[in-house]
Each structure stands twice: as structure tokens, then as C-alpha cells.
């Protein structure tokens, strides 16, 4: 323990985020080791993994996470020891399992520390790792893996160049430093060695890089203080003569001019800045405030326009327009900073799936697509648990055993695919397996046995999902396992809904199951249509709108307590918002219908008047008196008025539940009450 507990609390978020990075890096190396082991190839270099473990150990010690420190320490020792024994010891399957278990344990330790939970019991694991650690006479301060050495697998073709870099203040000011140069050289070929050297008046760095024959540095390299020669004392492969003609002249020497040019070609890793999410939130809030201020300016300009203030007003209006554009760009830039690629989350899922696969004894291949899809860090972090759940469920309950699959005429190996795609302001993540599919009849049978209200027809789509996600249904028992799904699905759906997302399911018996999660890729600022309902302004997120219709009130038909209107080839059910929220109803002869929902099942939200499009900042409604179904949050319109933001997915659900309640009431012959009492909807 550091004894500096409270002092180091200020770094706890840094600690968690650096742990995330090192754990992700460690997982990548473990998978590379595993596939090298499977294909009997030489293992990848271990220095990065060792360094990750070493850093995890050091940082965990500083923040008093003794659990993570202990496991990282045991893992590092075991790995160093195995490395000294020989390559075979590292890729031995049992040892690999121990490594996987160790990294998993560190992750659990860190998660427990983060949640303030008691740490997991890691004693047995640490003891088993210690048994694998061969005690050597003297601890090597500087093990083989700490060096950059000629890798075991030499570059297939290429020439070894010796690059010389002389750092200077001027180059450093341009962001050209030795780390950036090293990153650039790594992108060029295989970095074989790096050594500092004292030269007159300072230091020079020599890098030996095996460069493919078809690649050569361009002139910008000399601008960045690099000189290069062929080092023919080292031969990467026999092919040197063939490539010699393509090389820059060995005698060529350059004096780096003091060019103001940006450091070209610096590898991305050198330009990554880690930003605390809290600080980004501050920036987002400021952007939000700016949006509100500009909206106020907008109102003033509009009002002043009616007083004919002339040229001065034109200038203000122009400035206002420019500000709007700049704000939009600023908003987009800030939003982009928050985005991370979903691929990293997929890698973590691969890790969890590996455990589930081994436990189940099944053969499952994981397939990823769309790893580059970007999503808000906050959103993706909160989606990790639900996705883990879906992946584990798919492995344990979805995909069949190899024998069952062969008997069903399928290949013995099941496929679990994770796909991410972005469309507009939403991101879609699909978790699909080619397993047995949900046994809808068994699910329906069990649902009825438990007294869940379902119709007589076959269960599918949303209704199937409703049953799978019913809290009473989602228990871990044998019947659930054989029915194909249903473990913790209520938790999954709740997490998705909490992020204004939607969860859907498609399943075909014998063919497999696909769960689709749709999420907003960011949550803070939205384009919305402001509307007036019973004298109140409300905001509807623009991406939710399919169409806006202006209809005569006389064309609305009331049919068994349902308001409907002719729409395309059928009818459009209407949700009368004023009635739903208990506002006064308008006496106007015409109204507007905002068409939302899916193409197959749209609904029309009835409003009195359209006010206009606005950028709005979403503030969650914290006041329980204000919180109500159908309302996603509130927004400050900048004129001191607060407008409620409609939650269209919730309204769609409400409409559907009402329809079902009425249908049920019709069947029982009871008077069709218009609303399910449990909603607590104000009237």
C-alpha cells in the first residue's frame, strides 16, 4: 500500500483509464499468443505484455488496489520465468489459460475497486501462478524482452537502413522528437535496434530498420532531421542487391532546414492525447450554454427585425448566422473527441466469449464487422455489460454443441457475429448466432404457466422480447436454457432503454437468433422540432421524425377509443399528446401529425402548431414530479422557458400497450378503459 491513499484519489480516473488501455493491450497479445500456439508459429514479442503487466502492478500499488497489484505481479513473474525457460513454455496451452485467467482477474480487481466492491478472491490464482514461476538465482534487471532486438522472424525482404536523428529545440518545437521518429520508423519497416550516441555538442540517435525494398523515405524526412544510410553489416535477407537501385544514395547527407512545415507522417500513436471525460463534459456543457445564448440572440434579431433597425441589424444578423455555423462545427468537433471505435469493446467481448466457449465445450467462431464504427465513450462503456450478457447467452444457450449441430445438418462450428453500423445519429450493434433459435412455443408455454398475459398466436418479434425480458421470466433454470434464451434479458433491455436505445430480436428455429441494439451515438445535443401542444412548447428529436402531416380535425376518426386517420394505403393510429399529458385541447379546425416509429408500424403524434427547428441541449429530468412516461428530458429554450423533450420510443411503447390493453378488454367484454393504470400517466 502506498499510504498516500487520499492523495492518489485525484488520479483514480487516470488509473482506471490507463488500466483499460493496458488490459486491452494485454488481451491483444494473449490472443496473438493463442493463435501462434494453435498454428505452431513463433510467439509474438512479449515485451509489450510484460510492460503492461509491470505498469498495472506499479499503478495498482500506488492507488492501493492490492488485488490487481498482486495478480499483475504474479503474472509478470510467471511470464518472465516462462520466457527464460523457452518459447515452448510460453505457448503451452495450460500456461496460456493461466495468463488468460490472470488478465481476467486483474480486470475484475480493477472493476471491483472502481465500484467500491470487495475485491475478488485471487489467492488460488496467485498461488497457481507462483507455482509456475521458476526461481532463478539472480533476478535479471534487464531481461531479453526489454530490448529491441532482431526479431525471431526476420523481415521477408528488405534492406537494413541506419537512420540517424539529431534532436534539436527547433525540431522539438515542431513536435518532431525521438518518439515521433521512432513511431514513423516503425511504420516504415521493422525496427531492429535503437541506440543513443554522443556527438559534438549533443546527442544523436541511431535506428536500424529493415525496410522493404519497395519503400523509401521521401524528402520530408530530411526536413525532420533524419539522415539515412544502408548498413551493409547487417543483412535482413539475401535480396539486398535487387533493391539497391531503389535506395537513396548512401552518401547523401542533408542538413535539416528550419522549415515551418508540420511534422509529416508522425504515427497516430504519437498524436493521441488522453482527455479526462469530465473535462470533455465541461466543454460540452459550455457548448450547450453557447447554443442557448445564440438562440436568445436569434430571438432578439428576429424581434429587432420588426423594428427596422437597418444596417446595424444586418451586421448582427450576419454575425448570428456565422455563430450558428461555428457552433455547429464546434459541437461536431467536441462530439468527435468523445467518440471511440467500437472495436475495442468487441475485443473485450472476445475475451468474455472465450471463457464462455471453453466452459461450454462448444465450438464457436467469433466474427466481427464494423469495428471502426465510432460511438460515444460513455454510451459504449455502459453497453459493455449488456453486450457481455448477449454474447454469453448466445454461447451458452444459443449455439448448440458440435454433435447437435452435426445432427441438425449444420457445420460443427457455430458462428457468433458482432456487427456495428452507423446510420445518421444512431449506431446499431447486432449480436447474432447461427444456433438453435428461440423455441417460441416453449417460451409461450412457460409465459402462460407464469401468468404472463400473451395472446394465443405464436410469439415473435417485440412480443417475444417482452416475454424474454419479463423480470419473472428471466431466471436461470433448466427450462430457460433449453428454451434458448432468457438469462438476465430484463437487465439488458433496461440498460439499453436507459441510453434512449432500443432492443429488438429476430429468431428462427434452427437458424439462429439476432439481437439488435440501436443507440444514439451521443447524448448531449440534438436537433429538434419545437411544437405547441395545448399552449405548451415541446421538443421532438428531429431524427425520430418520419414525416409531418397537416390534417383537418374532421378527418380524424374515432374508432373504438382509437383516433385514426387515413394514411397511405392504410390508417395511422394517433396519440393525442394534449390528452395524454393532460393539457387543454385546442379548438382549431386543423392540427399536425408527427409521424414517428417504424415504416411497418408508424404512429402520428397530434400537436396543435409547429414552432420551428432548433438545436436543443438535453437535460435529464431529475424532478420526479416532472418525470413522466413519454418525456425524455427537458431543454432550456434560452428565453427562460423550459420545454419538455418527447421520448418517441416510449410513446410508441405506450401506444402499443394501450392498443393491447384495449384488445384484451374487448375480448373480455369489459368496458374498454383507455389507459393502463400502472403508467401513472397524467390526464
Amino acid at each position: 500500500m502506498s499510504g498516500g491513499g487520499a492523495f492518489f484519489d485525484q488520479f483514480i480516473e487516470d488509473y482506471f483509464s490507463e488500466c483499460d488501455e493496458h488490459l486491452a493491450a494485454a488481451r491483444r497479445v494473449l490472443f496473438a499468443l493463442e493463435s501462434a500456439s494453435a498454428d505452431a508459429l513463433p510467439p509474438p514479442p512479449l515485451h509489450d505484455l510484460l510492460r503492461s503487466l509491470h505498469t498495472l502492478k506499479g499503478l495498482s500499488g500506488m492507488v492501493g488496489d492490492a488485488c490487481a497489484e498482486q495478480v499483475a505481479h504474479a503474472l509478470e513473474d510467471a511470464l518472465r520465468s516462462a520466457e527464460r525457460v523457452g518459447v515452448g513454455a510460453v505457448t503451452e496451452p495450460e500456461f496460456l489459460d493461466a495468463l488468460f485467467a490472470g488478465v481476467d482477474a486483474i480486470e475484475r480487481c480493477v472493476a471491483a475497486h472502481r465500484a467500491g466492491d470487495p475485491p475478488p478472491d485471487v489467492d488460488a490464482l496467485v498461488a497457481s501462478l507462483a507455482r509456475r514461476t521458476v526461481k532463478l538465482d539472480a533476478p535479471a534487471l534487464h531481461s531479453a524482452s526489454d530490448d529491441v532486438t532482431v526479431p525471431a522472424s526476420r523481415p521477408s525482404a528488405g534492406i537494413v537502413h541506419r537512420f540517424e536523428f539529431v534532436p534539436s529545440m527547433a525540431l522539438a518545437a515542431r513536435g518532431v522528437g525521438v518518439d515521433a521518429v521512432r513511431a514513423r520508423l516503425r511504420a516504415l519497416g521493422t525496427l531492429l535496434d535503437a541506440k543513443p550516441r554522443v556527438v559534438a555538442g549533443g546527442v544523436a540517435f541511431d535506428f536500424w530498420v529493415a525496410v522493404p525494398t519497395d519503400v523509401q523515405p521521401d524528402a520530408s524526412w530530411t526536413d525532420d532531421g533524419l539522415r539515412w544510410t544502408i548498413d551493409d553489416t547487417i543483412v535482413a535477407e539475401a535480396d539486398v542487391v535487387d533493391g539497391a537501385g531503389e535506395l537513396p544514395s548512401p552518401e547523401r547527407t542533408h542538413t535539416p532546414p528550419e522549415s515551418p512545415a508540420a511534422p509529416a507522417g508522425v504515427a497516430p500513436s504519437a498524436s493521441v492525447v488522453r482527455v479526462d471525460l469530465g473535462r470533455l463534459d465541461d466543454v460540452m456543457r459550455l457548448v450547450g450554454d453557447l447554443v442557448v445564448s445564440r438562440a436568445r440572440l436569434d430571438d432578439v434579431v428576429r424581434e429587432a427585425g420588426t423594428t427596422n433597425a437597418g444596417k446595424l441589424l444586418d451586421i448582427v444578423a450576419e454575425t448570428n448566422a456565422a455563430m450558428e455555423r461555428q457552433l455547429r462545427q464546434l459541437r461536431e468537433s467536441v462530439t468527435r473527441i468523445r467518440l471511440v471505435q467500437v472495436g475495442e469493446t468487441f475485443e473485450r467481448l472476445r475475451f468474455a466469449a472465450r471463457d464462455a466457449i471453453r466452459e461450454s465445450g462448444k465450438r464457436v467462431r467469433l466474427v466481427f464487422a464494423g469495428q471502426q464504427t465510432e460511438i460515444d465513450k460513455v454510451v459504449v462503456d455502459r453497453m459493455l455489460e449488456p453486450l457481455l450478457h448477449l454474447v454469453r447467452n448466445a454461447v451458452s444457450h444459443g449455439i448448440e454443441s458440435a454433435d447437435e449441430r452435426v445432427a441438425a445438418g449444420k457445420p460443427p462450428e457455430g458462428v457468433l457475429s458482432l456487427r456495428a453500423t452507423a446510420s445518421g445519429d444512431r449506431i446499431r450493434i447486432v449480436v447474432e448466432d447461427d444456433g438453435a433459435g428461440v423455441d417460441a412455443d416453449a417460451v409461450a408455454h412457460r409465459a402462460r404457466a407464469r401468468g404472463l398475459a400473451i395472446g394465443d398466436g405464436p410469439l415473435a418479434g417485440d412480443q417475444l422480447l417482452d416475454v424474454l425480458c419479463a423480470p419473472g421470466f428471466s431466471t436461470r433454470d433448466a427450462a430457460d436454457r433449453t428454451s434458448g434464451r432468457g438469462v438476465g434479458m430484463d437487465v439488458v433491455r433496461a440498460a439499453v432503454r436507459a441510453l434512449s436505445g432500443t432492443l429488438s430480436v429476430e429468431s428462427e428455429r434452427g437458424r439462429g437468433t439476432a439481437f439488435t441494439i440501436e443507440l444514439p451515438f451521443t447524448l448531449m445535443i440534438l436537433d429538434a422540432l419545437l411544437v405547441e401542444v395545448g399552449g405548451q412548447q415541446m421538443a421532438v428529436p428531429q431524427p425520430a421524425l418520419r414525416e409531418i402531416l397537416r390534417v383537418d380535425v374532421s378527418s380524424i376518426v374515432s374508432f373504438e377509443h382509437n383516433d385514426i386517420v387515413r394514411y397511405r394505403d392504410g390508417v395511422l393510429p394517433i396519440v393525442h399528446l394534449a390528452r395524454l399529458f393532460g393539457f387543454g385541447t385546442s379548438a382549431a379546425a386543423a392540427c399536425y401529425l408527427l409521424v414517428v416509429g417504424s415504416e411497418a408500424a408508424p404512429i402520428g403524434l397530434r400537436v396543435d402548431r409547429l414552432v420551428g427547428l432548433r438545436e436543443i441541449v438535453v437535460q435529464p429530468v431529475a424532478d420526479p414530479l416532472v418525470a413522466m412516461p413519454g418525456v425524455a428530458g427537458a431543454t432550456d429554450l434560452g428565453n427562460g422557458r423550459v420545454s419538455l423533450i418527447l421520448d418517441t420510443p416510449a410513446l410508441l411503447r405506450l401506444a402499443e400497450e394501450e392498443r393491447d390493453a384495449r384488445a384484451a378488454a374487448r375480448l373480455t367484454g369489459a368496458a374498454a378503459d383507455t389507459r393502463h393504470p400502472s403508467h401513472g400517466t397524467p390526464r
Partner: protein
Amino acid sequence: MRTILVVDDSPTMRRMIMASLRELSDVEFDQASSGLEAIERLAVSPVDLVVLDLNMPDVHGLEVLRFVRSHDRFRTLPVVVLTTRSDEESRRTALGEGATRYLTKPFQPAALAPEIRSLLDAG
């Protein structure tokens, strides 16, 4: 104003070290995330003391130490090794290569500053 070069491949660890030394007056910090970068910083800007981690990418802390000690300009530069390696062998090796002090992580924030202060004052 004196400059302390903090060398560690973990950005969080560098921040922790700098925060622990914040109480020292008249001190500013320079940072390096690798052994190569440490040598570069030493070459291009004046440094009065180095806090050096050992396990780092490409060029190990011990190599940095050897390099520094082989260079006339840095022969007397105080280098404080701050590492998670707490065994006696590692300590002896580092001190033998010319480390001025050998401290281990986890460290007490309140104990680090006086140690560094005394070295700065002695220089």
C-alpha cells in the same frame, strides 16, 4: 527555477510523481515516456535532476543511466531511480551504474519531496 525530468512510460505515474513534488518551490517539470525520449530531453534542454523508471520501451532505464554517466556533461547530474523492483540485486546494479538514489514504488508522496529537495539543494 530548476528542472526535474520525470521519466516513466505511464502517464498516470508521471502525473503522480509530479503531484508529489509540487510542493517544491522553484521547480518545473519536463517529462519523457521512454528511455530514448529521456536522453533526447537531456540533450536539448537543461535538466537539474532526473526521476527515472527502469522498465521502459526500447531503451531500458539502466541504459539511460549508463549513457548519462558516460557523458561528461551529465556525470554529476542527480538521477533518482524510482522503480517497482524492490530486490537487493536490482538496487545494487542500479547504484553500481551510477544512480544517486534508489527508491521503490509504491512510494509515499510525502516522503518523495524531501528526498528530491535534499538532492537539489546539494547540487
